[in-house]
């Protein structure tokens, strides 16, 4: 598997592409980066769903943090 992945990643790239990825790699990297930062960016609709559903159920409400622009 390692050799297969190496061949995929070492292939020639078209202009403007920095890196070739294998399935799941982008998500794994995002997961690691956000976990290290400890924060989760939530789209407006997801934020609304979370707050309104928690409120209607009497569950704890989330608190947004100020960390400048989201990643």
């Amino acid at each position, binding site marked *: 598997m390692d050799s297969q*992945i190496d061949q995929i990643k070492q292939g020639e790239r078209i202009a403007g592409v920095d890196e070739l990825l294998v399935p799941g790699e982008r998500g794994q990297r995002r*997961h690691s980066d956000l976990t290290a930062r400890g*924060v989760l960016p939530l789209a407006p*609709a997801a934020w609304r769903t979370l707050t309104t*559903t928690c409120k209607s159920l009497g569950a704890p409400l989330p608190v947004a943090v100020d960390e400048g622009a989201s990643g």
Partner: protein
Amino acid sequence: MASDHSDPTRLAPIGDVRRCLAGAFERLGLTVHDADALAELLVDSELRGHPGHGVAALGILAGFYGDGTLNPRPRVRVVGETEGALLLDGDRGCGPGAPTDAMQWCVERARERKGMAVACVRDWQLLVCAPYARIAAEAGLIGFACTNFVALVAPPGGRTAVLGTNPFAYGLPAGRHQPVVLDVATTLSSMQQVRVAADAGQQLPDGVVFDRAGRPSSDPEAFFAGGLLAPLGSPHAPHKGFGVALFIDALSGVLSGAGFAKDVAGGRHVGELSLGARCRGVPATAGVRGANGLTDRPDQAG
């Protein structure tokens, strides 16, 4: 970040979001253990950049638990078990419980047998396939998981939805590299992605959905107004995605004894299949024991 008229993306502490989700699921009737696991599943999807199966899914799941479509306290039971195959009844549960048990069973049996093992769970809402394929891959095995879903896809040239988005995931263990895990729907877009676009007031790439007349569209609302999802491979080769979706419906719906094709109702009667295979540099040959169910069931279903 102060709120403004553009309603920005919010940053929330991961642990905080997890706690809120778990609190909501507990209040919907789940045990603390199951509520934590389901919250973690949504957070994991959100962290990996799949918001359709992330925090926004809370709204849909709350509706399903509220109206009895999903059972917050499922009694998962073993329907049948052989050396290499397991069938569980999920009792309309949702989240990591039964499929995690099923894949862990597969991993143990595949190791004991130095071969492969397969498990089906019927009447369970899987949400995402990747976590279960990843369990096998992280244990050094090849993992495969798939599920059928409520009918939203017509055959090429058709207008009647007969198959779901029917996603599958594989997990392949590697050495220096992380396991390779692919999780894809057999449609160009999952239903949740269409819902996220609709909520955000965004258009989709043209042809991702069809309107109710079967015409390609970029409008998420055209899908929700009786439209269809386009199979993977559309517009040039929709038979490819539709063909894979049919295979997944057979593996997860027909084989498990759950609903299949148009009998899969929203959140109910969903079947799934988990598979773990031991590998030693040689590709595992897939052969599913108990596949007689495939030939028997369509006749019974008449």
